[in-house]
């Protein structure tokens, strides 16, 4: 198997002291690697070491079969582009000027741009869609715009591999998606290899071919998103103690309300999620059911409810479960019904709603409520 980028026994750190040791990475051309891990764990240090900003403390990196350390600065600059969190200093430079600095490795002795260079700059700006701000002062544009100018600059450099340190941190949701789509497009069309750190785990899960999890002194895991984003893993990696992260859906939930629950939420088919979250905001503990364990509401219920009455997907609801749920309703004061009408497989929930009425519970119809 031919790898484009390989790190073997790589140790990174400052002043000869290793921060993270024995990092092993192997990437094929056109793949995207994402580094995830808690704040301050050394993601930037790893990226800086890969970009040769810091010398390696141990190990070797191969780029296209060549040792990265032995490459000349000029050679490396034509293969690798970078985008750090460190701001690029641009005094009296327009956005176009900044993009044009990406052509540096290709210009002559005095760094004058040729007609080809200008065209490449133009194309990069068109690709990233920043033509409208090209004449604006780089220091005067917004953080999000600046980020995109920096990407255009990197594109201009015509690299084979690009190193990005939290490239999406300043972008709003539209530009986040646009940015990552562009990366994906370049990977597919130009065989660009990407190594980046991301804070947005749900995005990391979606875009990465490989994920490197850093925790403490060693690499915790390295693998495909399917291998990494297993239930409960992120809780372990990020030492999450309040709230939860659902690896399968990329959902984040705040901490479940504590205390005695006296509300029962009848939900299903995704109708309950917003109600659960509202109750969480109001710090009111609740029970919910009866949900099939493949229901849209199920992961949120799992994260927020004190108890979830759940049945196996595509299975009939057992009598025992129904009984238990009724018993729970007995102990509650309020029942919130999120279902406007019950489908033929929701007979159990209809029965629960009727039971609530019979036993004289306060029944709130969540779909009618506007407040």
């Amino acid at each position, binding site marked *: 198997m031919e790898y484009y980028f390989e790190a073997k026994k790589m140790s990174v750190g400052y002043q000869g002291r290793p921060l993270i040791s024995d990092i092993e990475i192997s990437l094929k051309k056109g793949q995207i690697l994402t580094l995830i891990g808690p704040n301050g764990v050394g993601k930037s240090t790893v990226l800086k070491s890969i970009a040769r900003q810091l010398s390696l403390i141990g190990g070797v990196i191969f780029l296209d079969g060549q040792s990265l350390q032995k490459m000349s600065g000029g050679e490396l600059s034509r293969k690798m582009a970078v985008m750090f969190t460190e701001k690029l200093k*641009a005094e009296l430079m327009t956005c176009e000027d900044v993009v044009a600095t990406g052509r540096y490795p290709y210009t002559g002795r005095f*760094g004058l741009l040729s007609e080809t260079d200008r065209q490449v700059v133009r194309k990069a700006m068109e690709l990233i869609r920043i033509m409208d701000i090209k004449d604006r002062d780089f220091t005067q544009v917004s953080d999000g715009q600046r980020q995109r100018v920096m990407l255009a600059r990197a594109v201009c450099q015509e690299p084979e591999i690009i190193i990005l340190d939290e490239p999406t941190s300043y972008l709003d949701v539209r530009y986040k998606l646009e940015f990552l789509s562009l990366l994906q497009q370049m990977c597919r069309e130009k065989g660009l290899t990407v190594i980046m750190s991301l804070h947005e785990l749900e995005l990391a899960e979606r875009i990465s071919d490989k994920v490197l999890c850093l925790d403490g002194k060693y690499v915790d895991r390295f693998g495909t998103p399917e291998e990494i984003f297993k239930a409960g893993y992120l809780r372990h990696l990020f030492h999450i103690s309040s709230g939860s992260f659902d690896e399968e859906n990329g959902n984040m939930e705040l901490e479940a309300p504590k205390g005695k629950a006296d509300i029962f939420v009848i939900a299903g088919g995704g109708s309950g999620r917003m109600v659960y979250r509202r109750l969480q905001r109001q710090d009111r503990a609740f029970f919910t059911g009866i949900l099939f364990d493949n229901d849209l509401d199920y992961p949120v219920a799992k994260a927020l409810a004190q108890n979830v009455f759940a049945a196996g997907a595509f299975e009939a609801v057992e009598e025992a479960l129904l009984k238990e749920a009724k018993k729970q309703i007995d102990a509650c004061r309020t029942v919130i019904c999120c279902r406007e009408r019950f489908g033929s497989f929701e007979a159990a929930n209809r029965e629960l709603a009727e039971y609530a009425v019979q036993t004289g519970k306060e029944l709130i119809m969540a779909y009618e409520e506007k407040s």
Partner: protein
Amino acid sequence: MRWQQNRKVRYLGVFLLLGISVIIFLICNICMGSVEISLADIERCLMGRETDKTVQRIVWDIRFPRAVSAMILGGALALAGYLLQTFFHNPIAGPFILGISSGAKMIVALVMIFLLERSIRVSSAALILAAFSGAMLSMGFVLLMSHKVNNMSTLIVSGVMIGYICSAVTELVVTFADDADIINLHSWSQGSFSGMTWEHAKAMTVVVFLTFLIVFLFSKPLSAYQLGEGYARNMGIHIRGLRIAMIVLSSLLSACIVAYAGPISFVGIAVPQLVKSLLGTAKPILMIPACFLGGSVFCLFCDLLARNLFAPTELGISTVTAIFGAPVVLWIMVKHKKERAV
């Protein structure tokens, strides 16, 4: 595209303006003074035709070499300032304010006193060498400080302090040296273009011109360095090598100035900033020659005032440069505060 052309027109305009100003001030410096000399006289003098002996002497032996020196050293000073500003990413860095000029002054004074006491003639090369080692000494201290503090104003304050220490030492040795040349030394240690000869002018032209050429050849890596170290390194720049080159070149330029004209204040800060505003860009390939021309104009202008304002009394050149330069520094600081606030 039109906008691109506008920029080119602007650059061309600035260079024309600076070039013409250099010529005008050069002529003014030769014409004006306690003895007025007409253009026709100058022409006759330069063509080597028959002229009045006094006029010939004033033009050829006094004013012309002095004006040329002011032009060369002024350019060198502005260029040294530009290099230091780029090096420290600090808009108010300069050879004078960082104490580099004072360090050079100190060593030159020591060497001069030592040699004069033994009645050894001080050669141009020895002077420049002494000034260079002094400049490097101060630079070393400043670098040490810049490692410890990463703050624009603290760096400047430490430079000013180094300058004070060096000046104090210089004053001390000048006071206790018992030589007739002390008066000369005293006026030099305040900064002055007076007493320049063709020999001086030739030597400094060679040194400054060569240094200028080398700096100009560095304009591409400098442009990458301006973006910040991380990005420069990614562009394949050998940061350490470039930094050493910048230190040596700026010290050499500062040394050359101090060796001949003593320490001159504010030119190194004010001129690059003014030129940058004129050009509307910080690109080294334009800034390097423009700074040089700007420095020449500024020093020619200031020397003209120093000689003529209260003639026959001559003002110290730093007195004049400070009057015009210090407000520029204040303006820069206010401007920077504003930019930070945005």
